[in-house]
C-alpha cells in the first residue's frame, strides 16, 4: 500500500524543525525512525499534510555523559542504544529493554525518542524511562523545557508534546552498578508486549537497597509498581521476598481489554512477570 501524498521537509537543525512544524499547522507529523509512522501512513490510518523528517539533524543523535546523567539524543537508534557503553554502565535496564524491541531491521531504523514520543502503551521503552526517572528535554516555539517521564506520558499515544514541539534528548539519571532485567510476554516473534515488566535493583550484600519497577501495557500509560518496590527494599533478596513483593504488582492498575487478554489475565501476568523480572535482575 502507498501513503497518501504529503509535503516533505528535512530540516538540518532543531530550530528549523520547530519552525517547519509551526508553519505546517496541526496536520504535520514528525518522522523519526519511521518504524511506527510508515506502517500507519501506508495503511492510511493517518494522512498528514506535511512530514517533517528529523533524520538530517546531527545534534539529535548520540549518547553523552553529563555527570549525574546519561543523555541520549532522541534520534539515537535502538541499535546504537543497545551497544552504547554509557547506557550499559549507567542505565542497564534501558539496554535490556531495547534488546527486546521488534526485530533487528526495525532496531536499525527505530529511535529511542521516536518510541517515547509515539507513546504506544505496549512500547517497551516507556516503562524503563519511567522507572529510571528519565527527563525529556523538549524544544518548542517558546524555547527548551524539561518534562519528567511521569508528566510526559498522558494517555494512549498521547504525550505532553505540543504539535510544534520536538523531543530533543532524554536525560537518564545514572543508575551505576544496578542490575536489571526486562521481562516481556508476547505470543509470537516480533509481537508487541501483552504485558512486560522493567525491573532494576541495587543490592548491598544480600539485601535489596533500592528497587525500581515499571509496567508496560498495564494502563494507557506506563506505571510504576511502587508497592512492589516498597515490599523489596530493605529485605534480603530471597525467593520468598520476591514472591511476596510480586503479589502487589497489579495494585492500582487498569489495563485495557483487547483480543490478546482481559483485565484479570493481564493482572495475573503482571504478578508472574514481576517475580521473574526481579529474580532475573538479582541473578544477573
Amino acid at each position, binding site marked *: 500500500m502507498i501513503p497518501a501524498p504529503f509535503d516533505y521537509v528535512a530540516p538540518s537543525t532543531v530550530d528549523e524543525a520547530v519552525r517547519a512544524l509551526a508553519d505546517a499547522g496541526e496536520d504535520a507529523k514528525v*518522522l523519526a525512525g519511521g518504524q511506527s509512522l*510508515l506502517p500507519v501512513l501506508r495503511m492510511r490510518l493517518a494522512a498528514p499534510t506535511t512530514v517533517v523528517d528529523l533524520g538530517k539533524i546531527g545534534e539529535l543523535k548520540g549518547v553523552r555523559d553529563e555527570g549525574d546523567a546519561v543523555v541520549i539524543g532522541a534520534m539515537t537508534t535502538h541499535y546504537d542504544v543497545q551497544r552504547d557503553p554509557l547506557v550499559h554502565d549507567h542505565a542497564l535496564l534501558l539496554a535490556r529493554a531495547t534488546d527486546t524491541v521488534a526485530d533487528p531491521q526495525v532496531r536499525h*531504523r527505530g529511535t529511542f525518542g521516536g518510541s517515547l514520543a509515539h507513546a504506544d502503551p505496549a512500547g517497551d521503552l516507556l516503562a524503563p524511562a519511567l522507572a529510571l526517572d528519565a527527563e525529556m528535554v523538549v524544544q518548542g516555539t517558546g524555547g527548551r523545557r524539561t518534562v519528567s517521564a511521569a508528566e510526559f506520558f498522558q494517555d494512549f499515544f498521547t504525550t505532553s508534546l505540543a504539535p510544534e514541539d520536538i523531543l530533543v534528548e532524554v536525560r537518564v539519571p545514572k543508575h551505576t552498578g544496578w542490575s536489571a532485567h526486562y521481562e516481556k510476554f508476547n505470543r509470537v516473534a516480533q509481537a508487541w508486549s501483552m504485558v512486560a515488566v522493567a525491573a532494576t535493583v541495587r543490592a548491598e550484600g544480600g539485601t535489596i537497597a533500592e528497587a525500581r519497577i515499571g509496567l508496560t501495557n498495564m494502563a494507557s500509560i506506563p506505571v510504576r509498581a511502587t508497592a512492589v518496590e516498597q515490599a523489596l527494599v530493605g529485605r534480603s533478596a530471597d525467593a520468598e521476598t520476591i514472591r511476596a513483593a510480586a503479589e502487589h504488582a497489579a495494585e492500582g492498575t487498569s489495563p485495557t481489554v483487547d483480543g490478546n487478554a482481559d483485565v484479570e489475565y493481564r493482572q495475573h501476568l503482571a504478578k508472574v512477570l514481576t517475580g521473574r523480572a526481579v529474580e532475573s535482575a538479582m541473578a544477573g
Partner: protein
Amino acid sequence: MRITVTVDGTGYTDEVEPRTLLVHHLREKLGKTGTVVGCDTSNCGACTVHLNGQSVKSCSVLAVQADGCEVTTVEGLARDGQLHPVQQAFRDNHALQCGFCTPGMIMQSIDLLADNPDPDEEAVREGLEGNLCRCTGYQNIVRAVRDAAGHMRPGAGPEAEQVSDAERTTTGVGGDA
C-alpha cells in the same frame, strides 16, 4: 523531489514523490525486482535490503530518506559470476521452498553474520526474527546460515559489500538522469 541513491554500486538520480517507499523505488523505477514485497504490515522482512551497511525493511523507509545513501539488494551480492557465500549456502542447504522470503532472508543473514560471525542456532533464529517464511522452512535456513558462517571471511558483511567511489558508476539504466 530529486534524489540520488547508489544501488548495488550504481548511482541513480531520479525525481520521486515524497510518499514513494524505498522498495517501490527499487522495484518500479530502478527495475530491482529481486527485492520483493511480502506484506503490508512491516512483519515479513521479504523486502530487507542494506541501507548504508545496515539491514532495513525497505517498505518502512521512504525513498527520499535514502537520498545520498548506499543501498545493497540481493541483486548486488554476486561477484564476477560467483554467488555470495550466504547465497551459495542457501542453495547448498536447500534453504528455500517457494523462495519468496529468500531475498530478505539472505540480506538479513548477512547482517546477522556481520554482528556475530559464528552464531549458534538460537542466535540465528533471533537474528532472523524479523523475517517470516510462510513455507515454515526455517530448519534449512538456520542450517544454511551456520554453514555460510564457516565459509565467510571475518569482517565480511554489509560494509564489505559497499563499493569504493572509484568503482562506482555514475549513471544507471532505469534512472532519469
